[in-house]
């Protein structure tokens, strides 16, 4: 009886792990798309709104959903923090470092966004816009690649989780 319960637990956890991996593959393009939209909004804020960077980041963060929201809000919070004197680059990169593990995105997107941080808040508006456009372009490439990967690996992860659970149960039964 205990053996049976253990077997069911192993199979269920294997299946859930597979579904979690599949969800990561499904969430990655969505989050990249949301990040592109957020950067476009930042472009608008800089070009037409003349909003200070901290206010712009906080405003954009409020409009987003959770894993991306915390990146923008964290960057805005660090930038407005009176006690520590960090630059826009440092606050952006620290926020990305800290919140990245909650997102489904991978290293290549992280590099793009990290690189984008180097130019944040250092030059005039036209140059900022150029760098935002560059980052958006690169992220769009990543998005199509992520969509391809989703189509290939999402179903595989689901069935593979269940099969791995069943294999472990048979091996140690």
């Amino acid at each position: 009886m205990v053996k049976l319960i253990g077997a069911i637990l192993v199979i269920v956890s294997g299946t859930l792990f597979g579904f979690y991996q599949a969800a990561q593959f499904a969430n990655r393009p969505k989050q990249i798309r949301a990040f592109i939209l957020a950067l476009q909004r930042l472009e608008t804020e800089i070009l037409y709104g003349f909003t200070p960077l901290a206010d712009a980041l906080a405003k954009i963060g409020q409009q987003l959903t959770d894993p991306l929201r915390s990146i923008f809000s964290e960057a805005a919070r660090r930038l407005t923090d009176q006690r520590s004197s960090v630059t826009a680059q440092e606050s952006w990169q620290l926020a990305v470092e800290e919140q990245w593990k909650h997102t489904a995105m991978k290293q290549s997107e992280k590099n793009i966004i990290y690189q984008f941080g180097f130019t944040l808040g250092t030059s005039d508006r036209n140059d900022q816009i150029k760098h935002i456009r560059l980052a958006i372009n690169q992220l769009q490439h990543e998005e199509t690649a992520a969509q391809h990967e989703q189509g290939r690996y999402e179903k595989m992860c689901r069935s593979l989780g269940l099969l791995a659970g069943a294999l472990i149960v048979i091996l140690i039964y």
Partner: protein
Amino acid sequence: MNIDVGAIFQIAGIGIIIAMIHTVLKQMGKEDMAHWVTVIGFVVVLFMVVRLLNDLFQEIKTIFLFQ
């Protein structure tokens, strides 16, 4: 007979599951990984068979050699 039929079913089950994993991986274009899974499954089954054969030889020894 102290070896029950369970071992045979276990080996059969491993074979079926490994075949399914191989098919899934091959369909998604990860042929190298599929072959590794097959090889690992084969080694695991081989270990189980070796253990059973060891039991068989011990049995034969005790029958014919009268230690």
